[in-house]
């Protein structure tokens, strides 16, 4: 098990538990009561820690090395999945995966950012940071979904679109902009879920949907707390403050009306019970798709654009103010 810094008290209890279990295995003393007591302690402490997570703690959880990634959910949720590759222009981006999938008898097109599960794979997946061809592959698959009238499922989990020389040469900005422009007009339901990190343009590049959900221990922001700290505080040391200031938690996002719902995670985070998390995700995707399928394609597109049209917060000048010299 990997423990995050704010989980240290939990780690201590787990270590105690291990020791007591070892003693028990030697067989001389009955430790069952102590074990029970400790397990209760652990459960209470976990509840306590997890009932009041800060923005930064959610960021840490969203990056937990054991957290399930898109391909885990895809393989668990769908009966069949045929991965499709390539943007038909330049190459196959490994940081975004996608393909045709069978959701309890109905076909959907699923697309997601993919991070690697170990050091080697993290490199291979470019840490979930897509290049333009990733966004273009996603768009190709979404256009196919539209043609065959299949709903689109997007799983968002990225620290950002890749900031590299080649990414700029091939039009990172254009690729993301094009996706937003096209996704706005797709005539099939789009259901997006932030399953980990939702960083900026890299996230929204596959994140414009009729329904957007966030798992409980994730974040969504215009910039990562680290970069925000470096730009606004002119130092890397204010990431915690930046995470609070950005109000990036699912609870904030829901309060602001920028997302449609929060998916509760198993206590301790999605990685403590991935199968259970997959079930929750699946149930929610199915529900959203079935609700959206009621709408005509025209109503669907109108509602989607109106939803984004309404996002924004500003004041109006008081019209009683008169001219002054």
């Amino acid at each position, binding site marked *: 098990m990997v423990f995050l810094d704010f989980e240290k008290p939990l780690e201590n209890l787990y270590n105690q538990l291990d020791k007591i279990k070892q003693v028990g295995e030697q067989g001389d003393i009955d430790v069952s009561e102590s074990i029970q007591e400790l397990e209760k302690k652990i459960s209470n402490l976990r509840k306590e820690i997890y009932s009041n997570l800060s923005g930064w703690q959610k960021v840490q959880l969203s990056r937990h090395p054991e957290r399930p990634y898109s391909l885990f959910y895809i393989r668990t949720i769908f009966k069949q999945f045929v991965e499709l590759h390539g943007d038909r222009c330049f190459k196959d981006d490994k940081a975004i995966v996608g393909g045709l999938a069978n959701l309890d008898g109905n076909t959907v097109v699923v697309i997601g950012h993919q991070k690697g599960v170990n050091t080697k794979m993290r490199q291979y997946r470019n840490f979930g940071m897509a290049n333009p061809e990733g966004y273009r592959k996603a768009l190709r698959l979404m256009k196919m979904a539209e043609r065959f009238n299949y709903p689109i499922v997007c799983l968002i989990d990225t620290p950002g*679109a*890749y*900031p*590299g*020389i080649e*990414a*700029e*040469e*091939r*039009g*990172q*900005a*254009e690729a*993301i*902009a*094009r996706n*937003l*422009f*096209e996704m*706005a*007009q797709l005539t099939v339901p789009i259901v997006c879920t932030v399953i980990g990190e939702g960083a*900026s*343009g890299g996230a*929204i*590049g596959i*994140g*414009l949907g009729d329904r957007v959900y966030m798992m409980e221990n994730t974040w969504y*922001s*215009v910039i990562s707390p680290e*970069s*925000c700290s470096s*730009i*606004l*505080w*002119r130092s890397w040391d*204010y990431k915690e403050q*930046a995470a609070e*200031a*950005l*109000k*990036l938690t699912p609870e*904030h*996002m829901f309060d*602001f009306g*920028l997302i449609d719902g929060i998916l509760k995670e198993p206590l301790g985070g999605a990685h403590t019970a991935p199968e259970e998390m997959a079930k929750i995700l699946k149930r929610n995707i199915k529900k959203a798709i079935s609700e959206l399928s009621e709408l005509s394609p025209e109503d669907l597109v109108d509602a*989607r*654009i109106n939803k*984004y*049209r309404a*996002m*924004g*917060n*500003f*004041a*109006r*000048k008081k*019209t009683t*103010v008169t*001219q*002054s010299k």
Partner: protein
Amino acid sequence: MGWFKRLKDGIITSTKDKKEAPDGLWYKCERCKEASTQKEVKENFHKCPKCNYHIRIGSHDYFELLYDNGKFFELFTDLLAEDFLEFTDLKPYDQRLEKAREKTNLDDAITVGIGKVAKKPLVIAAMDFTFIGGSMGSVVGEKIALAIDYCIDNKTPFMIISKSGGARMMESAFSLMQMAKTSAKLSQLAKKRIPYFSFLTDPTTGGVTASFAMLGDINFAEPEALIGFAGPRVIKETIKRDLPEGFQTSEFLMEHGFLDFIVDRQDLKAKIAELLCFF
């Protein structure tokens, strides 16, 4: 001119309220370091008379350059940004807003005008870098959305002059969603077959490039403008080596197929007038 003075929509001649700098005042070029008089610079379309460096100018300067006789009607003048997240970094956002308004005499980082360019109507939404780095928050997104509605209702071509460091961090996810909002609205404009010209000026980066700035039916830029998604500093830190000469300039983007052409500020009006003839 106080911002409250432009409360009511009305014909504004952008030159009239501006304090004219005395002709004798000198301008020292940021690039070639040569000195010219303000008058020479202004007569040279706000470019350095010595090296043709395109000096960063504001929305009203562009309106003056482009609209016939410098006359236009400012639209959507009653929107004001608000510090609804109570965002504080080294300074509270509401103080930043107040200071920016004071310094620029503008309400926010974008101004929308309707007027005629070579006798043809054109709605122009022009950004101001001097207002919190031309950053896009809710007001910028809303004004673009309103301008697009106006263009659809009046069947008027639309142009955005981008000049921005990207999304405004102090409005967090609201700023991010303006990327989706403006792009979605542009898709509606496209469906109505109304042309959209995207004019990119120095600098255009981040969420602005990754939304409306790259979505023109025609994309064009001023010479040597910085245009990109990630900022050069971020890229350099990521790849840990120096960036190639001319990286992320207008010329670089043109070479890689993302711009239709580059236009000298001196020829801008004629070029737009020419484009308008085709639509």
